């Protein structure tokens, strides 16, 4: 009987047509031609090229291999795959998370096929729920194979702390998307990356941190506390002359203004990377004026991890559909069409310790048209939200 139910569920999920795969194959080639060459560190004596890596690095590259292909899938093919993952996750959530068990009783049937319509009937999860129902949102039996479960506290939309649980699998995906961001933007791993982040001690390490641990291009990264005075931060940047700067948009904006006021330039800077709060046009403009480098933003949240990365070719964002299902809902709770502006609602696809299903982030976004770059990952034209504590993802 169970097998029959399983088949029925699978049968109900629409299959992507061959046309999509073919289209994807064509665009993949275009991307592959422009993919930067990175030197992978080999762990096996006598083999330097192509590298045979440590198992954990191989896993990271295996994910990257999949991500490089899945990004070109057509929107509905991505959706089909997301729903396969979602189907398994929702059953886990319903079976092991008390909160969902209570709240989904009338709207969820584990033995019925999951469809976009049935998913849309699940209630939204508010930040209040997350704060007040923390215990009830924990899975009673996260799979042991997903590794150690850790608690993480971050700031919610109202500035009050919000706690979530993470697993080693969510950590793996966080690193995978950090690496994807680097690869999308063709960053040179032999260069210096400076990160000005919350609570970061002033230090220097070789390499760019755990997400890029398998890359042997010999770069270095530096960190500095975001609370330091802007003058000291600018002086530090001038001293180290990094090629890449990663920080909050607000900090970037302050530093850009200070650079302009003092007539200082960061001569080696190639790219400004921001995360942690929405970037407005003014911030982009002042940073461009001060340093004349591209600004690349990441849309992520403490509770969910990466949500969207800036397109390699445009200023808008691509939803990271392999990890999160993003809905942008209008005032009536309906999905917005391109051009529509609405509330950002997130479902995390791999967090089995504390699944967030239809979590209302408090952010707002404008849905974009499909991107001319060819990626099937949905587009967010802009994201607007309340400032919050930043989670800089690299170096971790």
């Amino acid at each position: 009987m169970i097998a029959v139910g399983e088949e029925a569920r699978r049968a109900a999920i629409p299959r992507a047509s061959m046309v999509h795969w073919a289209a994807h194959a064509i665009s993949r080639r275009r991307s592959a031609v422009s993919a930067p060459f990175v030197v992978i560190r080999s762990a096996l004596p006598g083999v330097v090229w192509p590298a045979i890596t440590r198992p954990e690095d191989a896993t990271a590259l295996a994910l990257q291999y999949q991500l490089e292909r899945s990004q070109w899938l057509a929107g509905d093919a991505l959706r089909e795959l997301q729903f396969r993952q979602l189907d398994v996750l929702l059953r886990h959530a319903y079976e092991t998370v008390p909160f969902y068990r209570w709240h989904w009783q009338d709207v969820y049937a584990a033995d019925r096929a999951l469809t976009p319509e049935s998913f849309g009937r699940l209630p939204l999860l508010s930040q209040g729920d997350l704060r007040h129902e923390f215990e009830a949102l924990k899975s009673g039996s996260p799979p042991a194979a997903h590794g150690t479960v850790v608690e993480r506290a971050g700031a919610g939309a109202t500035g009050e702390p919000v706690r979530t649980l993470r697993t080693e699998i969510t950590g793996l995906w966080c690193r995978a998307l950090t690496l994807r961001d680097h690869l999308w933007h063709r960053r040179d791993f032999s260069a210096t990356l400076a990160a000005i982040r919350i609570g970061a001690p002033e230090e220097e390490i070789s390499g760019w941190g755990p997400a890029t641990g398998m890359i042997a291009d010999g770069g270095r990264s530096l960190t500095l506390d975001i609370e330091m005075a802007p003058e000291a931060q600018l002086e530090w940047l001038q001293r180290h002359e990094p090629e890449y700067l990663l920080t909050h948009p607000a900090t970037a904006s302050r530093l850009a203004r200070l650079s302009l006021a003092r007539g200082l330039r960061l001569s080696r800077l190639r790219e400004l990377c921001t995360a942690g709060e929405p970037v407005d046009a003014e911030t982009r403009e002042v940073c461009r004026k001060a340093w004349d480098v591209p600004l690349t933003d990441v849309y992520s949240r403490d509770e969910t991890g990466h949500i969207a990365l800036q397109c390699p070719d445009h200023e808008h964002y691509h939803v990271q559909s392999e990890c999160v299902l993003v809905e942008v809902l209008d005032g009536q709770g309906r999905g917005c069409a391109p051009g529509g502006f609405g509330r950002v609602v997130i479902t995390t696809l791999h967090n089995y310790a504390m699944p967030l299903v239809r979590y209302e982030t408090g952010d707002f976004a404008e849905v974009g048209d499909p991107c001319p770059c060819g990626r099937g990952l949905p587009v967010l034209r802009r994201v607007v939200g309340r400032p919050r504590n930043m989670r800089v993802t690299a170096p971790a």
Partner: protein
Amino acid sequence: MSYPPDRIRSAYPGLVWPAVPPDSGALALALQFQLSRTQWLPAAALRTNQFHQLRGLLAHAHASVPFYRERLAAAGYQSGAPVAEDWFATLPVLTREEVHLQGPALHARRVPEGHAPVESGQTSGSTGSPITFLTTQVTRLFWQAFNLRDQFWHGRDLGLKFAAIRPDRGVRGDRGVTLPGWGPAITAAYRGAPAALLHSANTLDRQIEWLVREDPDYLLTLATNLLELARELRRRGVRLSRLREAHTYGEALSAQARAECRDLLGVKVVDMYTAQEAGYIALQCPDHDHYHVQSEGVIVEILDDARRPCAPGESGRVVLTTLHNYAMPLIRYEIGDYAEAGAACPCGRGLPVIGRILGRERNLALTPDGRKFSPSFPAETWMDIAPIRQIQLVQKTRRLIEVRVATPRQLTSAEEKAIGAALRHALGYPYQIAVVCLDRIPRSPGGKYEDFISEVAD
């Protein structure tokens, strides 16, 4: 479907897509991540990386392989030094005869950690003397990586059915076997899919009966066997309804044979160039009939009679250097095949191009004035003259070619004359032709079939 995202094996409960594969699958996909990028590197960058890898291999060969200690020392090799391309090109080639004679002197006294276990094998010897070779964990891993690349290059759907007819030691008799998957190269990372295997020693009758029953989507077999199958299927009016691609290996596939198979079967024909002792040498380009050298695993040189590199369009001897075999390094190994160098491929891949693989030196014809060429005598030149099932040309002298034909009856002298004239025309030289009628032309013990054999000494 060139990317089967939902078929990657997941090692973690609850993770369906994207999958987090088990270690063996992760290793396989980590290599594919690299290969998917290295294929687009410019030729010069590929060379740089190859020589970076070669540096360690030569140091190891010098330190651990008695034969190379001597040979490299004689060439002025400085242990561990970077390898200059022009110096490398001066190293003497290693012939098949030397490999045969040197035996264990070519085996490393030790292999680095992670390369064991070392396994021993022997080439079929169907078209030359058999050679004993060693493989390691690493060479087997790269074998699998290039196998998987081939699946991706040609957009095979890894969920469909695969059938192979080949001289596989693991399958005896006429029944064939069902396999749980397409092979370790695929099942390391992907979920199993239907696969079946039959020994190629089976008669065409039996092969066809088996194929019709198995009804595969993909068929892998020796090039000449495919041609015979295709002709026989057509003669009987039998169609393999699901077949979408025929995949050949192990023998030179001429342009005529390729076109004939394609026409008769109505499917794409994809060839590859592999050798048991050297691994994957070249794969057919996804967009063309020519081949791309698998530069991440092997350095391929195509050398003329003066041992100079052939220019695009020229044919010469294939000389290989395997980059990862630390148990039995093959450095500038003259494998005994002839191939035509190709020009850079419009597909954009930087992997060097082999235009055609011509087969063994003994499969080349000699003109009356002593030049070698790849003989072509497609079926349409002789099939309408007489009821010929098989044909084999054996060059006895520069002027005399014996034509062996398998026919149900003796040919008339008019038919023999017509065959002689047709072959002289196809080959382009006024050879003397002697026709010999046989019941059947046997394959070699290794299952290969040579349609042209030269018995003329150089």
